[in-house]
C-alpha cells in the first residue's frame, strides 16, 4: 500500500509541476511598462516555491516507498527531538522564504503601488458602483468638476454627482462607461466607490486594485500595446458582481485624440 501511495504522489507532483513548467494555462500577454518586472518576480517566486514543492513531495514519496509498514513488526523511529523540533524548523524555513521574497519583490511592487505617477500622466477619474464602472475625462478645459454625492443620479446619467448648473469646470467633463486610453502614455486613475468595495482588475495590465468606500486611491500605468481588454470587478460586491465589467480600449494617439474630440462634441 505504501508503494502505491508513493507512486500516486509522484505522479500528482510531476503532473502539477509540468503544467507550470510547460506554461499550460499560462498568464495572458502583458501590455504594461511595469508588467515585465512583475512577471519576472512572479517567475522567480514560482521557481523557488516550485523547487521546494518538488523536494518536499518527492522526499515524502521516497519515505513512503522505503519506510512504509511491511507488517514485519519493526519499531517506529522518530527524528531526534520529535515533532516539536520539526514544526519549529518548518515555521522558520517558511518564514525565511516569505521574508526573502518580500525583500526581493518589494521593488517591483513599489514601482506600481508606492511611487507617484509621472507628472505628464493623463488623469482619468473612475467611479465604481453596483454593478458598473464609469470613467470621467476632464474635457477641453483640463479641469474636473467638483463631485457632489447628493447629486448622483443614475436616471439622468449623472453617475459622478456633477453640478454643471453652478460649477463651470463640470460642464465639459466627459463621462463614459468604457476606458479608452492612448498607447505609450502614462495614465493616472483616481478610483473611488459610490457604494461598497469593488476592484479594478485588468489581467493584461498586471493591475489589481481594490476600491475602498470613502477613499480615493491613485493607480498608474502605461499601456504598451493597442487593443481591447476586459476590466473586471474581483471583489465580491453583491448580486450582480458576476456581471460587473467594462472594457479598456488602448488606441494609437491620433485615434484617441479623435475619439476624445468626438466625445467632447456630444
Amino acid at each position: 500500500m505504501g508503494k502505491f501511495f508513493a507512486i500516486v504522489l509522484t505522479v500528482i507532483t510531476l503532473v502539477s509541476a509540468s503544467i507550470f513548467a510547460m506554461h499550460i494555462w499560462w498568464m495572458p500577454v502583458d501590455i504594461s511598462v511595469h508588467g515585465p518586472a512583475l512577471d519576472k518576480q512572479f517567475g522567480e517566486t514560482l521557481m523557488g516555491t516550485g523547487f521546494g514543492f518538488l523536494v518536499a513531495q518527492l522526499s515524502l514519496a521516497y519515505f513512503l516507498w522505503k519506510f512504509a509498514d511491511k507488517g514485519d513488526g519493526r519499531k517506529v523511529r522518530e527524528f531526534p527531538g520529535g515533532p516539536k523540533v520539526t514544526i519549529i524548523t518548518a515555521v522558520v524555513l517558511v518564514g525565511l522564504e516569505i521574508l526573502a521574497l518580500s525583500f526581493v519583490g518589494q521593488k517591483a511592487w513599489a514601482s506600481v503601488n508606492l511611487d507617484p505617477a509621472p507628472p505628464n500622466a493623463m488623469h482619468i477619474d473612475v467611479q465604481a458602483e453596483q454593478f458598473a464602472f464609469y470613467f470621467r475625462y476632464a474635457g477641453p478645459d483640463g479641469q474636473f468638476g467638483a463631485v457632489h454625492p447628493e447629486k448622483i443620479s443614475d436616471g439622468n446619467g449623472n453617475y459622478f454627482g456633477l453640478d454643471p448648473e453652478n460649477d463651470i469646470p463640470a460642464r465639459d467633463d466627459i463621462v463614459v462607461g468604457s476606458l479608452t486610453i492612448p498607447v505609450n502614455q502614462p495614465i493616472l486613475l483616481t478610483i473611488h466607490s459610490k457604494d461598497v468595495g469593488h476592484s479594478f482588475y485588468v489581467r493584461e495590465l498586471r493591475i489589481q486594485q481594490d476600491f475602498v468606500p470613502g477613499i480615493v486611491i491613485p493607480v498608474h500605468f502605461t499601456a504598451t500595446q493597442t487593443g481591447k481588454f476586459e476590466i473586471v470587478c474581483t471583489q465580491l460586491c453583491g448580486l450582480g458582481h458576476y456581471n460587473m465589467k467594462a472594457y479598456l480600449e488602448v488606441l494609437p494617439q491620433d485615434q484617441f485624440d479623435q475619439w476624445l474630440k468626438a466625445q467632447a462634441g456630444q
Partner: protein
Amino acid sequence: MRSGYFTALAVAVLLGSGMLVFAKPPAGSGSITGKVTYTGTPPKMKPIDMSKEPSCAKQHATPVMTQNVTTGPGNALQWVVVYISAGDEGSSAPSQGARYDQKGCEYLPHVLPMQVAQQLQIYNDDQTSHNIHPLSKTNPEWNKSQPPGSPPIDTKYDKAEFIPVKCNIHPWMHGYFAVLNTSHYAVSGEDGSFDIKGLPPGKYTVTAWQEQYPAQSQEVTISGSEAKTANFVFKVLPY
C-alpha cells in the same frame, strides 16, 4: 304562476342593472385634450454605454439615450403623466393588468401609468438577469431578481405614488411607475399630446407630472359631453 315568474325575472333584471350602475363609476363622454411643451433650453440627453451587456447592446443600432427630459418637435415634452388629481375619486381598478417590460436593458415604457390596486406584470424579455427595484416610499419597497426566462412578476400597489424604478444590476436602467387614484389619465406622446376620454360632467383638477420638474395643475369644468383643451408648459433648464 306565470306572472310570478315574470315578476321575479323583472326584479332580477332591475337588481342586476342597479348593481351594475353602483359597481361602475358613471361613464361620461367628456374629454380633455392638450399638448405638453417646454420653454427654455432642455438638457442634452446622454448616450448609454451598454457594452458590458453585449446581448442588450446588439439590440440597439444607435445608443439608447437617457430619457429624463425627452423632447420632440415643436418643443414637445414626452413622458408627462396628465391625470385627474381631484374630482374623480372612487373609480375601481380595471380587470386588465398593466404590463412593464425589461427589453434591451431598457424599461418599456419609460413611464407606466396604472391605477391603485391594478395588477402589474413585469416581464424580463432579455437574455440576461435583471433585478427590478421600485424605490417606493408610501408603498412597501421591494426588489426582485429575474433570470432570463423567468415568469413575469405579478404585483400591485395599494397607494397612489410616483415611484422611480431602477435595476440593481444595470445602473443605467431607469423608469417610473405612476400609481394613480383615477382611471382618467394619459401620458404625453412624442408630439407632447395627450387625450383623456370618458369624463362625466364635473369639476376637475388636471395635473401634469414630469419626473424632473415640479408638477402643474389646472381646473377644468366639463358639462355634458364637452371636449375641453388644457395645455401645459414646463420651464426647463440646460443643466
